[in-house]
Structures are given as C-alpha cells and as structure tokens.
C-alpha cells in the first residue's frame, strides 16, 4: 500500500459549481490509475454501457430508485454530447439525493439499531439536512462523536452513542469499524492474532476517549443523555501474556500520539461535578478530544475509509475488502486508485457530492457488465462492471418507482405533492420491503437472499396494491394502451429502463390475448419486479 507522507499539502478545494462545468479531472485520474494497473487494459476492458443502463445505475445510486419511463425516454432521445454529466448534476441537485443518501449513511452508521433512547427519524433528518447543506463528512462524524444529547435542537446527532447505550466496547468497536475502517474487536483482549496492524493498544487508546463518558438518566429532561467524569484511566492486560503485565493507555488514535490529560487541580476539574441527579461536565472532555483528533490526526484514515465505502456503495465492492479490514496486509485491489480517492477526499473537504460525481462519470463506473473475454476476476480488476444487488432501500423505492406509485401519488396529491410529502409517502410504502430485506439489527447490509423474502414478494398483500391500476401508475398506463407493443414498451421502460426485444414484445402480445387484461398486466409487472434483472444493477 502506498503511504502518503504526513503533512501533505492540500490542493485547492474545488467548489461544487466549478465542478459542474469542468471536465472531471478526478474521474480521469481514477481511470488513469485503473488503466495503469492493467498492461493490456485497452484490449481487455469491456466497452461503455448503453444510455439506459447508465441512467438506471445513476438513478439507483444517487437518488435510490430506478428511473421512470418518461425519464428513460427523455434521456435516450437527448442528443447533447455531455448529457450523462448533465443528468448526473440534475440528480445531485434533486432533493431526493440528500434524502436517499441520508438513509445510506443511517444504514452504514446505525445498522438499523432501534431508536431505543432517541428519535430515529430525527437522526435521519439531521443527516439529510447535513448532506443538503454540503457538510463535510468529517465534520459530521465529529459532531456525532462529541454529541451529548442534552440540547433538544441537537439531540438527534447523539443517536450514534445513545442508541448504543454508550456501551464502551460496542462504541469503540463500531467507531473503529465504521469511521476508521478497522475492526479492532479482536484486539480488545490481545494484539490481533492475524493482523499485525491491529494492536491492543489501538483498541484501548480508542477506549480511553470514552471511558469517562457514561449514560445518564437526566431527571429534569426525563431523557437519557451523556455525562462525563474527569477521572478514570484505561488499563489492560493481554490474555496471551503469562506475566499479566498491566499497561495504561491514554487516549489516542491507532498509530497516533497519546494525548495526555492536562494538569488540573481538584477544583478545576469540573464545569459541573457529577452527582446522583447532576450530569457530569468536565473541563477537559476526552470524548470531545476524539472529535477533534478524528478530523486532524485521524483525517487520513477517515478519508481512506470513506473513499473506500463510497466506492463500494456505487461500485459493488470496496477497493479494500472487507470494508472494515484496512491494514497493511490487506492489499487494495488498486492501491494507486485508493490513494487518489483518499487524497481527493482530503483535498475536497470530505464532501460527498463531488466524490460521487467523479466516480459516476468515470469510465470505470460506465463500463458494461458484459464481459469482453474470459479474464479471471474481471470485476475486481475493473475490466467490467460488477453485477451487484440493489440494497433494501433501493429495492423498496424502485418497486414504487417502477410500478408508478410515485407518479400516482403525485397525481393524487396534486398541488400538495411537494418533495417532502412524496418522500413521506414513499418511506411509508417502501418500509415493508425494506424491513423484509434488511439484515437483523446491528449487522451491516449484505446480500442475503432468504426464503421468506421470496414468499413475501410472491404472496404478501403489500405488493399487490402496486400491481393494480391506479391513475398515473404503470398498470393503468399499460391498460390504457390498445397496442400491446406500446404497453410492452411502457412495461420494460418503467421496470428495466430499456426497450423490450422482439421476443419480449411477443410475450406481452400473447398475454394481452388472455381474457382478463388487468390480470395479465398484474402478472407481467410482478414477473419483471421479481426478476433478477430488476433485483440487480447491471
């Protein structure tokens, strides 16, 4: 792995508007790194994907749903040479972008843990507002780590800690996994048995930021908040050490400097001393120290982790895999690429949108998922796009979009069809799909198809409503067509973002001969929604 020297000079931060018009230099840099890693790249790489495929990819990746049939039609007939970049910018400016990506960050950072002590939807709103305001993700993480939950206006951000009950081992594990890309859980009791880079002192250095923080049931606020003491040290022994030597650890990031407590007299220790009914507020907060350290000494590992995760989210697999195993012995699939993206994250102030823009406008992202030859590990080498499953939110919102629920709702709401109103409707209607597809709480998203998901899709009443005709939805549009060919087009454009081939037109025509057209339409829509082509991004 290429290591950057400390204190690398920051490039000028490119603003979002200037990016909109410039050719995307970051995309070019990424593609350059990918080509350089493959001697015969030009001979081996698959060609660019077609427009419909591209539109479907950026829609699910940037706003969480498949494109509507009219969006596909518009995009397919557009002739501007930079129409792909234009559409990307259109999606990034869409309020649904921040709305969807808030749910992505929520799934990353909360892994669907219930809102035990806080309001889970207020937290998602906080993430959405942060993203809409283009807040740097480093600043966002710092806010989350420093939160105490006391101020009602800022309570939402404390969910990360409060809904983990501020259980220190869990918090340290999740901070190391989710923000630093290093699962230090195994390093709690001993240096990691297989990973040289994960040491016990790393785990306990993180622990030392939290050991003085505690969950406090505030009698006045009648809520759980975080308090902190001004004393308490972290000591540890290795279970493999026969001598049981006890070591002390001050707060410090892995491989970072140890931070000593300032020398304070007893009287100087507290802003508010902890008591039975009083939340402790120390003058020197170790937890606040972590927030500061993460965005300074921890900037590079934070940037690398985020770059890797954002890449994984839209490309289907991280450059380092698994996502929480960043260390010296785990080679990135393309080390130069990872470092380019890490640097871009650092230089770009940890903004999400510019990073996403650069990735989706790269040749790598736009490569076809059809193999060109018989190269082994072609997806890992980025010779072709990876066939990847939609995540639970993408499935839910795409079923709604594909079946025309969104359009029907917009019609029904009329002038009241604001983005916020539609988002609320979509969240509620997508929830049963998301719940069925989501892993158990406390687990990262991962593709685990299960029998009961198929039974749900087949037989549960919830999906049936989207297959019935309703003014503005797909079933209604199909039934309105006298020509089965036009109905077939409407079907395939809505669900799969492409036109049907001859054989498919023929199948739809045959279905339309049947006695009950509305039944035929229901079953056609269902069959495509249940198909692998819908379930995956190709």
């Amino acid at each position, binding site marked *: 792995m290429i290591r950057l020297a400390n204190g690398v000079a920051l490039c000028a931060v490119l603003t979002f508007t200037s990016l909109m018009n410039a050719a995307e230099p970051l995309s070019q840099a990424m593609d350059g790194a990918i080509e350089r890693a493959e001697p015969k790249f030009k001979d081996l790489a698959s060609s660019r994907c077609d427009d419909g495929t591209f539109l479907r990819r950026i829609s699910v990746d940037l706003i969480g749903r498949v494109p509507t049939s009219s969006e596909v039609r518009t995009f397919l007939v557009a002739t501007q040479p930079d129409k792909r970049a234009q559409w990307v910018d259109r999606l990034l400016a869409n309020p649904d972008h921040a709305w969807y990506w808030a749910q992505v960050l929520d799934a990353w950072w909360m*892994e669907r843990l219930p809102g035990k002590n806080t309001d889970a939807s207020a937290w998602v709103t906080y993430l959405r507002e942060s993203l809409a305001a283009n807040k740097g993700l480093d600043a966002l993480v710092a806010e989350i780590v420093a939160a105490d939950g006391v101020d009602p206006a800022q309570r939402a951000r404390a969910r990360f800690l409060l809904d983990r009950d501020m259980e220190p081992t869990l918090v340290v*594990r999740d901070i190391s996994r989710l923000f630093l890309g290093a*699962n230090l*859980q*195994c390093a*709690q*009791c001993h240096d*990691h048995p*297989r990973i040289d880079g994960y040491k016990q002192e790393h785990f306990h250095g993180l622990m030392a930021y939290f050991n003085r923080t505690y969950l406090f049931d505030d009698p006045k606020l009648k809520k759980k908040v975080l308090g902190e003491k001004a004393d308490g040290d972290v000591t540890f022994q290795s279970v493999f050490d026969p001598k049981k030597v006890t070591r002390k650890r001050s707060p410090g990031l892995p491989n970072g400097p140890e931070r000593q407590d300032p020398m304070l007299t007893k009287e100087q220790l507290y802003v508010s001393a902890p008591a039975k009914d009083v939340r402790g507020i120390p003058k020197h907060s170790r937890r606040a120290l972590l927030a500061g350290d993460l965005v300074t000494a921890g900037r590079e590992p934070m940037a690398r982790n985020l770059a890797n995760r954002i890449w994984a989210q839209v490309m289907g*697999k991280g450059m380092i*895999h*698994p996502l929480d*195993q960043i260390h010296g012995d*785990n080679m990135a699939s393309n080390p130069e690429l990872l470092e380019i993206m890490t640097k871009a994250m650092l230089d770009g102030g940890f903004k999400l949108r510019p990073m996403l823009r650069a990735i989706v406008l790269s040749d790598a992202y736009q490569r076809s*998922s*059809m*193999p060109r030859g*018989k*190269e*082994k*590990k072609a*997806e890992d080498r980025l010779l*072709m796009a990876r*066939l*990847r*499953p939609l995540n639970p939110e993408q499935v839910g919102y795409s079923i709604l979009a594909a079946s025309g629920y969104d359009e029907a709702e917009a019609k029904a709401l009329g002038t009241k069809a604001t983005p916020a109103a539609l988002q609320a409707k979509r969240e509620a209607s997508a929830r049963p799909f998301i719940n069925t597809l989501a*892993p*158990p709480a*406390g*687990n*990262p*998203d*991962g*593709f*685990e*198809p*299960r*029998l*009961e*998901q*198929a*039974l*749900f899709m*087949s*037989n*549960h*009443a919830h999906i049936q409503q989207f297959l019935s005709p309703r003014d503005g939805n797909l079933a209604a549009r199909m039934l309105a067509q006298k020509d089965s060919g036009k109905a077939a087009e409407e079907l395939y454009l809505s669900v799969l973002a492409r036109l049907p081939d001859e054989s498919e037109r023929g*199948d739809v025509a045959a279905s339309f001969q049947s006695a009950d057209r509305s*039944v035929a339409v229901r*079953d*056609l829509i269902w*069959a*495509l929604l*249940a*198909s*692998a*082509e819908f*379930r*995956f991004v*190709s």
Partner: protein
Amino acid sequence: MGELRGCGSIEHTISRRAAMGVLAAGSAMAFNGNALAAPLTHQNKRVLMVFLAGGVSQLETWDPKPGAPTGGPFRAIPTSVTGTHVSELLPHTAMQMHRLALVRGINTAEDDHGKGSYIMHTGRKQEPSVAYPHLGSLVARMVAEPDNPLPGYLHVQPGGGGGSSAGDAAFLGPRFGSVNISDGKPPVNIDLPNGLTQARDDSRHSMRRKADARFLATRNTAETEAYTQTHDQARQMMAKKALFDVTNEPDRLAGGYGRHDFGRHCLLARRLLEGGAPFVKVTHTNYDTHHENFDFHIERMGEFDRTFATLLEDLHQRGLLSSTLVMVISEFGRTPNINRNYGRDHWSKAWSVALAGQGIVPGAVTGKTNAQGTAVVDRQVNGGHLFATYFKALGLDPTKKHYIDQRPIPMTDPAASPIAEILA
C-alpha cells in the same frame, strides 16, 4: 451447476457463499470464497433435535438421585432397560428406554444460557474471531440432497419470532440458516394471495424464469443464483404446504402426541421429517426453574414425556427411527442443591442428554455422576465430544475441515473425539 458463467472467475464456479461478501459482525476473517468441503455422501438420513430451553433438570429426568439430600421429592422408576432408572416424571419415556442412549457425564462448564446453547448447537465454545455453524446448518449443507425442496434446517418453536436465523449458518451462508416455523404454523406468506390461482402463479413464475434465463445467459453470478433460487425454494415450500397441516393426522395419534403446543409441534416435526426435511429442531421452553423447580417439572415433563414417547414410537412404526438421529438436549442442567424457592439453578458441571436412532446404540448408558449429582465421576464429556458423536452417527467424518479463505477450520473440536461406546 457446471454451466459457464459470465466472467469465468474461480469464485463463481465454486460456491454460492463465495460472492456474498459480508460476514456476521465481529468476524475478523477476510472471506474470499474458497472451496468448502464437497458434500459428503449421505443416504436419506435426517436429524431430530428436541431442545428443552432453559436448562432441564437432569435430576428430574435422566439421572435421578432419590434419597440423596439433593434428590428432591421425585423417585426413580425402572425402565425397559434392566438396571437403568429414570425419574418418575418419565413413565412413558421409561418404556422407550430400549431405544434411547443416555450420556450422563456431561461437563460443558458454561452456566450462561446463550453461551451454553451455543456450545450445544455448534460443538464449540464461543470465540470472538470465528462464528461456527449450527449442527442444523451443517446437516443442511452436508446431508441434505441438493435438490431437496424443503429448507435444510427447520426450527419448530413456540410462538413469537418468525423468519430465519441466517446467522446460525455462519460461514456456510444464509441459505443454510434455520427457517423458523413459529408455533408450528406454516411459514408466513405461504399461501397465494386472494384471487391468485395456482395456474396464474405458475404462469407468472414461468414469465419470471424466462426473464431470468434471458438476463443471466451471459452474466450470472453466485449472487444471482442465490436470489433466483429463493423464488424456486419458495414455490417448492408452497407446494409442500400440506406438510404443515397437522389436522390431517388421525385423531387418536394426535391425542397420543398431546393436545398442547409441544404435542402439535412434535407431530409437525414427524411430518416434516417424513416429508424429507433433513434437520428439524423442536423447542420446548420454560425449563429455567429457579423457583418451584418440582411443580414446574411436573408440568413440563407432563407434556414432554408422553409426547416424546409417542414420537419415538411413531418414528419407529414408520421405519424412520433407524435413519433418524434423535437428540434431547438443553443448554445445561440444574443444581443438585435445592435453593430457597424450591428451585434449582444452572449447573453445567454434571448433566445429561438422551440420544436415539441413526448410528446410536439403543439402551446404552455412558457416564456417571457422584451420589449427590454434583460432579462427573466417570467418562466426562463436553459439547465437542457430543458434536463428534453426532457426526459419526450420521456417517460423517468428524476430522474433516472447512476451508475459509484457504484457512482450514476443523468441523468438530479436534480435542474431542466421538463417544465410541454409544455409537453403533
């Protein structure tokens, strides 16, 4: 499964699990999907696990100590095996003892419910870095026929909690996780929705499959296969829906099983096993009798005894028992000492399980505890020995290994060997 896949990479031709990526939280293994052990030979064997949740008292079941200060008020009764006695709470099971083997010398040294249960399901103590698969998942993977329409690991449990526990399968993959049959009722959503006929369902799935065939002709992966397979599995489960209808049973037999939940659940278990399910677990709860241990065991054993005896006899009558490995287990036993609430607390140092069927010597008894029941004095075994014994009984090699990320992981604890004296 030998068709050419799109990119021809190693992962895709080997294992479905290969491309699924994410492991259970806490696992430190980088899983890149190398070969698992190839399916081992099997001949229509199956497993029935009866799990008495909470920790059944060995003193009130398999290892009574009447007259000892720790013995409690129940006496011991003779069984159909000369010289073997069980608690008076098991009069019907006592008459089936000639089919059962008893392991009385278990010391799992783990008094925590979750951890004790883990040991009994996986044959290993919990480790932070590796999650081991349940026996049910292993059987689903290695004993089940690949085209078996039923899920390999079915768990019939009292109400609450449906869905599946994909995590049970650990690195074997969620396909081999347990599928929960909550309260013995068919899986949720097993019925077609109102107004949808079988003909229509056939037709829409035929459309789905046609669409998939077209799409996946040139680029399918382990993940797409896993996905499409769940639909086929769902259809097959729906076709087997009738298995879940225990009202199809003759009334007298249903009466013999008992007209209570456990009775119905065991009757369902028999139907599932008979219908080809490779591994069925039935849970009976409320054995955690810290308070009024004796009254509650009267009640619990009152349900268990007759039901289990009926089940054994029924399996035998249908010619299934000799090819079905039957086990009655718990997460631990209970303290010989009677506490201040006429209760017994957790005791993993000296307790018992019962086994029967495939590969087991009927009527065998191994292991002895002392006069008070506080310690094992002869032939002490742990969860690893039991696990290796299950393997051997099923004709599987307990020394075989899984290969995860090219790292060999023994399927059973290498430090524990099968209990030879109860293996046929």
